[in-house]
């Protein structure tokens, strides 16, 4: 299995908030060791490796993970799904709900 983690750098040069959050959580949990490659999608640089990969895979959100396993490539844009399905980590329903809301801001109007 080969895992690529793509994170975004904003036009200001700062990392995007969610990417920073995910990276911190990967670090703290020790799961960063499972990541084989980190690519940057830099808003200031359309040809940055992460931006190129996002275009190739038609991914429109960051961070995202690309998992290659026995010739099959799977893209995860939802962190808790990646944790659960790839790293086989238990995710609390509160954490999952929070990520759902973060990725789908229109839901808070419900």
């Amino acid at each position, binding site marked *: 299995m080969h895992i690529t983690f793509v994170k975004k750098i904003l036009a200001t040069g700062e990392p*995007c908030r969610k990417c920073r959050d995910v990276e911190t959580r990967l670090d703290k949990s020790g799961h960063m060791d499972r990541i084989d490659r980190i690519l940057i999608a830099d808003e200031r640089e359309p040809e940055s490796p992460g931006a190129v990969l996002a275009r190739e895979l038609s991914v429109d959100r960051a961070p995202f993970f690309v998992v290659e396993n026995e010739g099959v490539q799977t893209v995860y844009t939802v962190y808790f799904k990646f944790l659960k399905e790839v790293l086989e980590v238990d995710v609390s329903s509160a954490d999952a*709900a929070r990520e759902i*809301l973060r990725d789908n*801001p229109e839901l808070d109007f419900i």
Partner: protein
Amino acid sequence: MEPREVTALDEPQLVLRRAATRFEHDRIAISFSGAEDVVLIDMAHRLGLDFKVFSLDTGRLHPETYRYFETVRDHYQIQIELLLPEPAAVARLVSDKGLFSFYKDGHGECCAIRKIEPLRRKLDTLDAWITGQRQDQSVTRANVPLEQADEVFSTDSRSLTKFNPLANWTSNEVWSYIRHHDVPYNSLHDQGYVSIGCEPCTRAVGPHEHERAGRWWWEEATQKECGLHGENVVKIIG
């Protein structure tokens, strides 16, 4: 008599009929927010469509909204299932961060516990749901379609369909319908409230303010807007 031409104003009823035809009664429900999306309940009632109805009771709604639930329940003689948050999760949040943490940390954590998690639990029991989401409500809803595969709440083993019958209606059209059909509405609307959510996170807005201005007004609007696509790789949602 010549049949009347079907117009965009008929769209919600057509979508509701289609939804009722395609899904079993026990596997589809209307999500009612306690605000102007009551028109969905009224339309279903007039069409003779017996949809189940649920609402998210976050525990922090206005007294007016709770009374309004009862008004709607009595008026249409329907049951409204109130979905409550997980008590342990609420207790943990309140114990750790107090009752008003959202003013400091943003509303995400509280909304996730009080709304999203109960909603997810409910949607796990359905094949389809019906919402009052409209494109004119906010920038994040600008592309809401009449019907969509709900990729957020579908699982590997179960696909969920989401109907948004009011997607193409404007707020004015919704209110014309409410007035024309004498539909009961939340009394907060008479006090200047447009979009109605939890009491601490909702306020009245001025006549020229967007309804979004009445929700989470202390947070920066830009926090919610981040999108990027292909050629101008400028923003990947993050």
